[in-house]
C-alpha cells in the first residue's frame, strides 16, 4: 500500500536520502533498521511531507510527494515522531482528542480503547502531558496518532530510552494494533523487538537501503549486521 521509489531529501545542502526504495504491504509490520544518522527519521518525515521529498511516494496509488502533511494524514497515514512531541499545557485526554481528525470522530479507535491498551493513560487522563514519564509520553504519542484512525502508522524509535518492561509493552501494543489491521513501518535501532515482530526488515546505510529481507535472513547474514548495524 505504501511504495517509495528513488526518494531523495536534503537538509540545506546536505544530501540525506540518496534514493530510498521500499514498500509496505497491507497488514504488514516492516522495520527500518540502521545506525543513527543514516536517514531513517528523515525517511519518515519525507513520507509525511514534513521534509520536502524528491522522488516518488505512492500510497494506495496516490502520489504523496508535494502534498501537505495534513492532507497526507487524512489519506490514512499516521506518524509517531521519535521525540514523542506530546503537547505541553494540554492534558493526556486533550492530547488524545487532538489525535482525532474532527470533533465527531467515527474511527475504529476511541479514547476508551487507548485507556484499555495502556491503563496508565487512564490514571493520568487529567495530568498535563509534559509531566508524564518518558514511557507514558511514548504511549500517549502512539495512542494519539491511533485516534486519527490510520491504516498505516509510521513509528519512529518508540523504545529509545525506555526501561525493558515498557519496551515489552510497546512491542505488545504494536502487535495488537497490527492484528486489528493497521500496517506498521517501525524505525528501530535495537534489533530485539524489530526482529521479533516484523515480517520484513530493511537496513539503511548512508541514505540508501542496503539490505532487504526477512528477520531470519538478516540474522543469518552476519556480514550485513557487522557492516551496517553493530557498533
Amino acid at each position, binding site marked *: 500500500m505504501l511504495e517509495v521509489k528513488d526518494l531523495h531529501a536534503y537538509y540545506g545542502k546536505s544530501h540525506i536520502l540518496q534514493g530510498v526504495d521500499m514498500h509496505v504491504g497491507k497488514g504488514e509490520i516492516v522495520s527500518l533498521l540502521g545506525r543513527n544518522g543514516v536517514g531513517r527519521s528523515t525517511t519518515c518525515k519525507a513520507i*509525511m511531507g*514534513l521534509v520536502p521529498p524528491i522522488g516518488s511516494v505512492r500510497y494506495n496509488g496516490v502520489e504523496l510527494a508535494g502534498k*501537505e*502533511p*495534513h492532507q497526507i*494524514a*487524512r489519506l490514512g497515514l*499516521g*506518524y509517531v*515522531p521519535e521525540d514523542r*512531541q506530546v*503537547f*505541553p*499545557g*494540554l492534558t493526556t485526554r*486533550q*492530547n488524545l*482528542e*487532538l*489525535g482525532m*481528525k474532527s*470533533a465527531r470522530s467515527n474511527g475504529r479507535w476511541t479514547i476508551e480503547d487507548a485507556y484499555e491498551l495502556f491503563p496508565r493513560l487512564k490514571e493520568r487522563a487529567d495530568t498535563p502531558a509534559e509531566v508524564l514519564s518518558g514511557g507514558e509520553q511514548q504511549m500517549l504519542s502512539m495512542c*494519539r*496518532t491511533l485516534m*486519527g484512525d490510520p491504516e498505516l502508522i509510521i513509528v519512529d524509535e518508540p523504545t529509545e530510552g525506555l526501561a525493558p518492561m515498557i519496551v515489552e509493552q510497546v512491542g505488545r501494543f504494536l502487535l495488537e494494533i497490527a492484528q486489528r489491521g493497521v500496517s506498521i513501518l517501525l524505525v528501530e535501532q535495537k534489533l530485539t523487538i524489530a526482529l521479533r515482530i516484523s515480517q520484513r526488515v530493511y537496513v539503511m546505510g548512508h541514505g540508501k537501503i542496503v539490505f532487504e529481507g526477512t528477520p531470519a535472513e538478516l540474522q543469518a547474514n552476519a556480514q550485513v549486521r557487522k557492516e551496517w548495524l553493530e557498533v
Partner: protein
Amino acid sequence: MFELFVFSIINGLVYGMLLFMLSSGLTLIFSMMGVLNFAHASFYMLGAYAAYQISVYVGFWPALIIAPLIIAFLGALTERYGLRHVHQYGHVAELLFTFGLVYVIDEIVHLIWGRLPVDYRIPPSLDFSLFTLFGASFPAYRGFMLLVSVVMFVVLYLVLTKTRVGMIVRASLSHPDMVRALGHNVPMVFTMVFALGTGLAGLAGVIAGNYFITEPGMAWAMGPIVFVVVVFGGLGSIVGALWASLIIGIIQTAAVAMPYSLADLFAVFGLQLTRDAPLADFWFLELARIAPILPYLLLVLILVFRPRGLMGTRET
C-alpha cells in the same frame, strides 16, 4: 497621595488593557509562526482610520463591529498572500516583509486621509461623566474602553482554553509539525490566528483612536511599547502579556503624575542637593519627565535578569 494612587490604578488599568489588546495578538502570532510582526501597530492605526471612515457614514456603533472585521480580513490576506510566500526565505525575509508593510501602510494612510489628524470623536452617547471621585470626574468612555477590553480578554481566554480550535492553536505553539501530521490544517490555523491578532489590534484602534488622536503617527507611538510588553511578558505567553500590559500601563500612568526626582529621594535620607551641584539637571529630573522611557528601562532590565520574560517559555 491616596487620590493619586487610585486614579493611577484606574487609568493604568484602562491603558494596560488597551496595550493587552495589541500585545495578545502580537504574542500569539509570534509564538505560532515565529514572526515578530512589526506592522502590528499599523493594523491598530488602520482600525482607527477605518472606524473613523465608517462612523462618518453610519455612526460609531456599527463601526465598532465592522472596522475590526475589515482589519482582520486585511490581516488574513497579508498572511495568506504575503507572509506565507515569504516564509520559505526564512525569518529575516519575514521580518523585512512586515517592516516594509509598516511604511506601505503609513503611505497609504497619508494618501487617503492626509497628514493631519482626522475628526474621529467619542460618540455623544458615551460622552458624559460616569462618576466623580475626589472631585475629579471619570469619563464614561474610559469605562467603556475597559469594558470592551475585559470582554475581549474573557472571550479570547474561553476560545483558547475551552474550544477545539483553541486546543489546536495551543498545540501548534509547541509542535506545529506534529499537529499537521495529525491531520490538522495548520497553515489555515495560522491565517486565522493572524486575522484574529490583527483584528484585535484593529479593535484597539477603534476604541482608542477617538480617545487619543487618530493621526498618521499613532502606529509609531504605540508600536515600540507593544514590543516592550510582549518581551517583558515573555514571548508566546498570553498571561504574561496580560501582566506585562497591566504593569507597564500602571507604571507609566503613575509616573506621569509624579513630580518627584532623585534629589527628593536623597533628601529623605538627609542629603540636600542644591541646584548648583554637579549634574544637577539629572538629579532634579522629575519622574514625570522620564515616564516615557520607563518601559524601555524595564525592557533592558528584564533582558538582563530574566531573558525569557515574566512568563515566557523560551529565551528571547
